[in-house]
C-alpha cells in the first residue's frame, strides 16, 4: 500500500511528468464543463420559458435529446462517431478540434450538463412569484432589464439546491473521460491496478479522492445556500 502511494501519488494528484493528470484533470474537466454548460444554459433557459413556440420548442427538443440518452453514448458520438466521417477529417479546422480527445470530452460534457441546467433554471424561472415581476414592471423594469436585474439573479439563487445535485452528478460523470483516453483520477487508478494488481487499494485511493471532492462541494453549497438563499428562510 505504501509503495503504491509512493509510486502513484504524483499522477493521482496533478501530473505524470508529461501532462496534467489525476485530481487536477478531474477538477479541470468538472469546472470547465460546468462553466461552459452554465453559460449556455442561461440564454437557453430564457428561451425554454419563452412565450414564443419557435424559441421554446427547439430548446425543448435539445434538452429532451440530451437528457433522454446516456452521456456515455454522447461522448462516443462526439469522440469517435463524428471523427469517423471523412468530411470532418478533411476540414482543417474541424479536424484539429475533433482530433483532440480532451476537446471532444469537454464538448460532450458541456452540452450534457447544459441540457440539465437549462431545465433546472427554466423551472426556477417559472416558479418566480408573479407579484415580484409585477412589482418590477411597475417600477419601470422591462425586457432584458427585467431579466438581468430581477429574474435571472432570483432564478440562479432559487435553483441552488437542484444545481448542487447537478454539480456532483457532473463530477461523477467525469469518470467517463478515461474511455476517451483523458487521464483523470480513474484513469490513473486503472493504470495502477493494471500494473500492480492491487485492485482494492488502487480504486480505494481514487474513491477517497472522489469522496473528499464530493464532501467539499456539498459543504461549499451549504455555505452558498446560507448566503444566497437566506432571504427565503426569513419569510417562513
Amino acid at each position, binding site marked *: 500500500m505504501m509503495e503504491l502511494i509512493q509510486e502513484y501519488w504524483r499522477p493521482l494528484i496533478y501530473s505524470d511528468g508529461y501532462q496534467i493528470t489525476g485530481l487536477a484533470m478531474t477538477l479541470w474537466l468538472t469546472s470547465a464543463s460546468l462553466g461552459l454548460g452554465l453559460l449556455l444554459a442561461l440564454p437557453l433557459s430564457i428561451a425554454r420559458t419563452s412565450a414564443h413556440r419557435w424559441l421554446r420548442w427547439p430548446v425543448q427538443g435539445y434538452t429532451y435529446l440530451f437528457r*433522454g*440518452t446516456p452521456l456515455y453514448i454522447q461522448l462516443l458520438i462526439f469522440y469517435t462517431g463524428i471523427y469517423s466521417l471523412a468530411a470532418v477529417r478533411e476540414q482543417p479546422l474541424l479536424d484539429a478540434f475533433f482530433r483532440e480527445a480532451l476537446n471532444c470530452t469537454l464538448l460532450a460534457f458541456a452540452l450534457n450538463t447544459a441540457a440539465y441546467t437549462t431545465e433546472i433554471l427554466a423551472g426556477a424561472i417559472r416558479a418566480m412569484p408573479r407579484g415580484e415581476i409585477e412589482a418590477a414592471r411597475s417600477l419601470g423594469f422591462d425586457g432584458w432589464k427585467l431579466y438581468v436585474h430581477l429574474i435571472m439573479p432570483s432564478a440562479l439563487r432559487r435553483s441552488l439546491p437542484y444545481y448542487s445535485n447537478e454539480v456532483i452528478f457532473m463530477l*461523477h*460523470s467525469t469518470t467517463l473521460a478515461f474511455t476517451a483516453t483523458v487521464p483523470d483520477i480513474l484513469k490513473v487508478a486503472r493504470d495502477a491496478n493494471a500494473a500492480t494488481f492491487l485492485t482494492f487499494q488502487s*480504486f480505494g485511493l481514487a474513491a477517497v479522492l472522489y469522496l473528499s471532492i464530493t464532501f467539499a462541494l456539498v459543504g461549499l453549497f451549504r455555505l452558498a445556500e446560507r448566503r444566497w438563499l437566506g432571504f427565503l428562510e426569513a419569510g417562513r
Partner: protein
Amino acid sequence: MLPTFSQFVATLGAFAPMLLHGVWITLQLALLSLLLGLVLGLLGAGAKLSGVRTWRLCAQLYTTLIRGVPDLLLMLLIFYGLQTGLSRLTAWLGWAYIDIDPFSAGVLTLGFIYGAYFTETFRGALLAVPRGQFQAAKALGLTFRQSFVHVIFPQMMRFALPGLGNNWMVLLKATALVSIIGLADLVKVAQVAGKSSQQLLAFLLLAALVYLLLSSASNLILGWLERRYAGGVQEPSR
C-alpha cells in the same frame, strides 16, 4: 464518406439480430438491477428508520459512501475486486476457478448503487405516510406484514413514485456503462456493428435513439403508475 440512407438500411438488416439481442441484454440488465435496487432500498429505508442504532449507522454509511463515489468507479472496483477476491478465496479453498461474467457484475453493481438512491427515496416516502396509519393498522389487529402490504405500502408508493421515476431514468442510462466492463449490451453491439461496417456514427445515433425510446416509454408508464397510486387521493376533488 457519409453513408447514404439505403446503404445504412442494408447494413442494418445484416446486424439486426445482433442489435436486437443487445437491446434485450440492456433491458434485462436494467430491470434486474431495478429489482435488486428496490429490495435493497426498502431494506435500507427500514434500517434507517429502525430503532436499532447499529442498523441506522450501517444504512447511513451505505448511502453516504455509495452516493459520494462515482458509479463507474464502483463498477470497476466491484468487477475487478470481486474477481480478485473470489480467485484468492477459491485458490485458498482449493476449489475450481469461478469466473464472474460482466452481466452478473453489472446487475450486482447497478443494483447495489441504485439501492442507495432508492433507500433515500423510500425513507422520505415512508416518513410522509401519517403515523396514525401505522397505529390504526395495529389497532385493527393487523400483523406487521399485513399492515405494511395493505396499508403502508400503497400509500407510500404515491409519495415515492416521482423519486423512483427519476432514479429509474438515471439507472436506465447508467446501464450503458456496463459495456465498459465488456458486456455485449446495446452500446457495445452498436460500436462493433458501426466499426465493422464503417458506419460508426449512424449506429451510435441508432443506439441513442433506442435509449430515447426506452426513456419515453418509461415516462408514459410512470405517468400511468402515478395516476393509479394517486387514485384514492384525487377522487374527492373530482
